[in-house]
């Protein structure tokens, strides 16, 4: 996909987002109460409308999407696009692991949730296969953080509702 085509898609997504936002603002937030109170709706509504306008402007400036792109010329004369490839799978995987971490933190507590998620991230995202690294990092980092934050600095780290190791 060319940079301009990406801009076109991005502007369409932003336009839809701004439209949904504006509609939601109009239907759920009350207007001002008079006497100079412009109300809680004014700013979110204004931001939604501004985003609509900006998305439309970006769409216009990126059209037509198959027009010649702006490129940088790398050593050797090869043209390189300015935008990068989006890696959807690693991004979705990391997001899933963070959601799992949040869930496990509340259910199993920091001391169990953390090594589990570290192992998952190291094996699935980072493709680390060394057992020494896997267990060293997961256990070392968990215990290190627990000692420093919970015991030394007195910062509360989650204890689980299902299992509570303290």
């Amino acid at each position, binding site marked *: 996909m060319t940079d301009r085509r990406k801009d076109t898609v991005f502007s369409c997504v932003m336009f839809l987002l701004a439209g949904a936002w504006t509609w939601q603002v109009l239907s*759920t937030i009350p207007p001002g*109460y008079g006497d*100079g109170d412009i109300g809680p709706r004014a700013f979110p509504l204004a*931001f939604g409308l501004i985003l609509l306008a900006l998305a439309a402007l970006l769409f216009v400036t990126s059209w037509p999407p198959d027009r010649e792109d702006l490129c940088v010329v790398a050593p050797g004369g090869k043209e390189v696009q300015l935008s990068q490839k989006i890696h959807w799978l690693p991004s979705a995987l990391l997001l899933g692991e963070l959601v799992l971490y949040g869930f496990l933190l509340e259910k199993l507590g920091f001391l169990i949730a953390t090594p589990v998620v570290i192992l998952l*991230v190291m094996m699935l995202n980072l493709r680390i296969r060394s057992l020494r690294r896997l267990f060293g990092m997961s256990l070392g980092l968990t215990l290190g953080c627990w000692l420093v934050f919970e015991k030394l600095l007195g910062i509360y*780290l989650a204890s689980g509702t299902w299992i509570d190791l303290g």
Partner: protein
Amino acid sequence: MELFLQAASVAFLPSAIGAVGLGVLIGLIFGSIPGLTFTVALALALPITFSMEPVAAIGLLLGTYIGGMTGGSVSAILLGIPGTPSAAATVLDGYPMTKKGEASIALGTAVIVSVFGGIFSLIVMIVSVDLVSRLAISFGPAEIFALVLFGMSTICGLCGGSIIKGLISGVLGLMMMTIGLDEIDGVPRMTFDSVNLLQGVNLLVAMIGLFAIPFIIEVATQRMDVAPTRVAKIRAHLPSLNLLWRKVWLMVRCSVLGTGIGAIPGTGGAIASFLAYDHARRFSKERDSFGKGNIEGVIAPETANNAVTGGTLIPLLSLGIPGDPATAIVLAGLMIHGITPGPALFMQHATEVYGMYIAVVIAYVWVLALQLVGIRFFVHVLKIPRELLAVAVLVLCAIGAYSIRNSAFDIYAMGVIGVLAYVFVALRVPITPIILGMVLGPTLENEFRTAMMLSGGKAGIFLTSPIALLFFTLALLVIGLQVVSELKFRRNPQEKVKA
């Protein structure tokens, strides 16, 4: 003079110097870990001061505040993740310097200019505490709105290649901060009946997500696709005196800016550092190298955000008005020890006030010593394999996000915002304007609405104040200059692409 000597004899007691040092160390640790702010550090340090002498106690709190403000730059420069919101602007050029192998120069410069900014603001505070506090207090909602709007106009300078994309990014930041319970009317906005969303999107959580998650995904994708990029050879040397001398005028300007912003309640280090960054970029001879590792891009925000520390003490000491949550805790510490700030402070507690001034100087000496000694150790972070560093960053960021409100929701929010930031970076949409929108958004809205209520709905309130008019004019000027520069670029695009 007698009172000053009396204060010095208390402030230079080993216990007082040690207390300040302890505070600086706590602040540095909390400031350098994303999510653990110096406000949290101050809250944790406050009970330690209960049994201390007033000067040592306030010294410990001020040390924590100052240490935290400087500590934010460490992770901003080394990892590209700001430890505190006031270090967000430091990432823009600090992290590219690290990528070029100039981490120690960036860190050393940040420390030295931080001390410069802090001491400068202290001197300004001592000399002009009365005058500046009277000027700052004359800032009503209309003037603060105009100042924040001027701050927003700097978005144009952070847009990178496309003003439209930068503005979209900024508006998204503004929109995010309207989510949650409306501060003025108490109305839930865009919460979709979710209890978690009632508190809104936390600025720190968003900041951690915006800067940390793209780094982790980048490391993961590099392991999957290509050979990892190597950080240039790590050298451990400091900026030369010649370099610092050449930038001294920039440091003075940013110190004045930071002190002035700090003196206005409700503003703070993040606004000051972004304004200073934009100011440095706008007046630099090497404008095009900003964002690619220009040392001025580290000097400006770090000088300004540390100059804020002295600035915030001006309304705090003379009027008892804390400028931000951190100084509110310092105020609590003062009152716990029987020191009530206000016009009578200098008559009733002159010794303690002089003691505080000396404590600030001692705190900066500690900062200088700890950070300069620490640089040779800090830079070794870069020797850790990137995949292991990414795991450690992930866990630290998750702890930081969770500990803000003890809520797993903040970890989810961090993840979602982070993945969006990664997509934005890949699409060449700048993410710094999102931070600026989030930092300035609530103040912008609240001050505008308060001004409108005070004037009974008459917009003329914004046009009758000379201070507000000055900031509006400056904002228009900044936007105008940026539009002209964009039009020039459209006529000759290759020039900018090559740059």
